[in-house]
């Protein structure tokens, strides 16, 4: 056999194998023939893949899901706007009844009409204990939801809950489809049907999600006809495929985004976020639970340097779950880096430096472990920087890496480098982080924080419907955190995106900790006006 004939044989066999198997490998949900020339497409690279696309299991609960609509939606300034409802809800005097008027004439992408029964079905199913929705607690306030005729839905609450309207951005599922199958595993979880601007044409798990514009969208057919989200977990691969032109946009970590800074054809967007990194200081730890140690750490830590060195400047120092540029932030509660003040606090509290420089009080050495999620480079760098700052004040923090399985049983006594953040309402973060009754409840209140004044203020903050009154309550919480910080908040992290210029100037929303599918400049892809004249078929 000559080399040439071998090559020929290999090629021939390959082709045969391909033909044989490919014939068997049908593509069960291939769309009807492509819409031909003139379509506009956008391909973006994301790092995160949802487990399920069913809103009943928690998909899109914070709004903006592309396939679905909620009763309400959030605009660029994070203000609530009507979506499937015609207006913001009417709230009763006592704050216990929310009434929504529904938009008429809206159809699901399968052509069936949307109605009040779908809203009732969606909320009742999520509240059903048999539904495996890990975010059910977020609707804890709901007592019941009922339809009044075809166009009105009424929610009654167990207790007044001011941020409730923010929760109604969650997507509405069609009862005639999702109600007919197993809610936890049925086909609807991977082949969703909604009222949104895009229709899912294919979800190739681990590879990509393909969408096509919904021509009958009640908000008008989007100009970007084809939208693809490629799931690329590796940062470097994502950057490479963006550079090669395979992607039109992608989320990137700061160091890789920097490489695109001088690019003429692409623009970098930094999305403000509520995504914080914090150190939990558990009350049950003899050292971390000591108020003077907590206060000393709070000023000993150099947040500015963390932002500059770890985040390459793409972020902000954090003093609490509320970012400094939020309207809910209490001006004057910033704690600048002040090592001398930290030492003074510790000296006055009786923590005296021992022989090795580590402080001791009543025979207790000022030392505790700090855990971070192994493999998370950002958390590791935060943890190391924090430990090194603490060392200068005479507190010895030993950093250790582990998975959540390792960390969770230790959370009661050991510090953890944690992250979180949901921007829609100040209640969302503060209640679960600080409420004493939630101490040790799953991952809620990991620091076992217990402060009567804070408890009272966050209760008041969620009950009152009056904005000024709520602001006052959250001011109290933030001032209390200065006096007794249960956590050392370190940074709020900007999320960076690089996108092709041809889509024109884009906007971003304030983003949560989770990188949801529709975070980033493509949060409103249905409103993009590409400059191109239709040659962008890729």
């Amino acid at each position, binding site marked *: *056999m000559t080399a040439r004939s*071998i090559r020929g044989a290999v090629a021939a066999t390959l082709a045969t194998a*391909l*033909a044989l198997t490919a014939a068997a490998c049908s593509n069960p949900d291939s769309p009807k023939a492509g819409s031909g020339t003139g379509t506009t497409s956008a391909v973006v690279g994301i790092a995160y893949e949802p487990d399920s696309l069913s809103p009943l299991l928690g998909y899109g609960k914070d709004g903006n899901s592309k396939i679905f609509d909620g009763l309400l939606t959030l605009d660029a300034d994070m203000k609530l706007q009507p979506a499937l409802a015609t207006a913001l809800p009417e709230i009763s005097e006592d704050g216990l009844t929310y009434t929504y008027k529904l938009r008429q004439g809206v159809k699901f992408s399968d052509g069936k009409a949307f109605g009040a029964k779908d809203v009732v079905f969606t909320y009742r199913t999520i509240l059903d204990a048999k539904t495996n929705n*890990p975010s059910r607690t977020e609707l804890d306030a709901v007592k019941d939801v009922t339809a009044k005729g075809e166009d009105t839905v009424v929610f009654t609450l167990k207790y007044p809950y001011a941020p409730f309207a923010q929760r109604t951005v969650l997507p509405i599922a069609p009862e005639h489809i999702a109600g007919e199958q197993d809610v936890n595993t049925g086909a609807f979880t991977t082949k969703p049907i909604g009222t949104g601007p895009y229709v899912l*044409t294919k979800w190739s798990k681990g590879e990509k999600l393909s969408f096509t514009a919904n021509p009958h969208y009640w908000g008008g057919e989007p100009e970007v006809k084809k939208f*693809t989200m490629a799931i690329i977990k590796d940062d470097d691969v994502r950057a490479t495929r963006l550079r090669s032109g*395979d992607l039109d946009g992608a989320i990137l970590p700061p160091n890789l985004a920097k490489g695109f800074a001088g690019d003429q054809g692409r623009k970098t967007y930094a999305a403000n976020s509520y995504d914080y990194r914090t150190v939990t200081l558990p009350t049950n730890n003899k050292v971390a639970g000591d108020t003077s140690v907590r206060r000393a750490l709070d000023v000993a830590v150099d947040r500015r340097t963390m932002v500059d060195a770890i985040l390459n400047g793409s972020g902000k120092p954090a003093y609490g779950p509320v970012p400094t540029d939020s309207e809910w932030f209490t001006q004057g509660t910033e704690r600048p880096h002040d090592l001398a003040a930290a030492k003074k606090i510790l000296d006055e509290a009786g923590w005296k430096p021992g022989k090795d420089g580590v402080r001791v009080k009543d025979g207790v050495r000022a030392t505790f472990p700090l855990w971070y999620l192994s493999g998370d480079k950002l958390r590791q760098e935060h943890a190391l920087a924090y430990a090194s700052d603490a060392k200068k004040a005479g507190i010895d923090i030993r950093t250790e890496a582990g998975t959540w399985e390792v960390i969770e049983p230790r959370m009661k006594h050991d510090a953890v480098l944690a992250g979180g953040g949901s921007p829609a309402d100040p209640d969302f973060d503060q209640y679960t982080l600080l409420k004493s009754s939630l101490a040790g409840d799953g991952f*809620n209140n990991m620091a076992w924080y217990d402060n009567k004044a804070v408890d009272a203020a966050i209760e008041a903050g969620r009950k009152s419907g009056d904005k000024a009154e709520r602001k006052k309550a959250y001011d109290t919480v933030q001032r209390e955190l200065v006096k007794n910080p249960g956590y050392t908040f370190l940074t709020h992290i900007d999320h960076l995106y690089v996108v092709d210029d041809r889509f024109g100037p884009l906007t971003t929303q304030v983003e949560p900790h989770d990188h949801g599918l529709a975070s980033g400049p493509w949060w409103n892809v249905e409103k993009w006006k590409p400059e191109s004249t239709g040659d962008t078929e890729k």
Partner: protein
Amino acid sequence: MARMTGRRALFAVPVLLTVTFGVFAVAAASPFDQVKAYAGTAGLTASQENLDQIRANLGVDQPLVTRWWNWLTSALQGDLGDSTVMRQPVTDVIVERMCWSALLATSAFLIAILLGTGLGVLAARRPGGWLDRGVSSAAYTLEAAPAFWLGLLAIWLFALKLGVLPAGGLTDTASETITFGQVASHLVLPAAVLGISQLPWFFLYVRQGVTDALAEDPVRGARARGLSERTVLLGHGLRSGMLPMLTLIGSRVPELITGALLIETVFSWPGIAAATVEAATSVDFSLLAALTVLATAAVLLGNLLSDLLYGLADPRVAFDG
């Protein structure tokens, strides 16, 4: 022959039972929490009550043996259960991905066998010649090189530096339809890398077998009778040199499966491998058990196949039974 197949099939039953039980036992002993894996990031803010409810819904709190027995009895009735990580029936997961894995593995296997045999014969013709020395040392190097590393190297060279082949996926990112041309061009790199990582074994076996055969008396006799070099090489040398390779074909199946696992990850090939990895780290019992049964069955079938081939090729070998 039929009796041997029957006996092997009977023997497979206890093997498969033990393997599935082993999967359940190992997964139960692993530190990963199924509920946490199921809830994903939402689990990090969920209340304990919420998580406990999901635990009960998923039936995760039942003892190991009960869960295994439940899985087994429903699997025998054709219901493989639901995958918790893919949120789909296990059958759907397997059907959607299996044929893409089969396509990749078959192509790679063919490349390895054909190229290995061809090169082996050529090398045996002139032992110690430049082709023999070159290919042999390359083969020893390849034997030591992990498939994973080869894959990354191939991406770097063909996709990034030369830009001639796609770096991953089944089709172009923007394309929704699966066309023959798209799949073919995307298959080249993963199949070639997987095939080449398997090639050394076939090459070295064939080379040795044919070299030995060429030194035997009948071959020397044939040469002496003036038969053409081609007939001697292919008719005599390859024929007896092939025998050990037939055994090899069967025994390479497990290696092929693990190799495919890595290659699919490197090239984002939407096959069964990615699902296996996810099922394992998320303690997805139903999916994990079903996939293990499949892999075990593939290995058993591979062994049976090589024994049958061997028996057919060499009349001196009797079928066991």
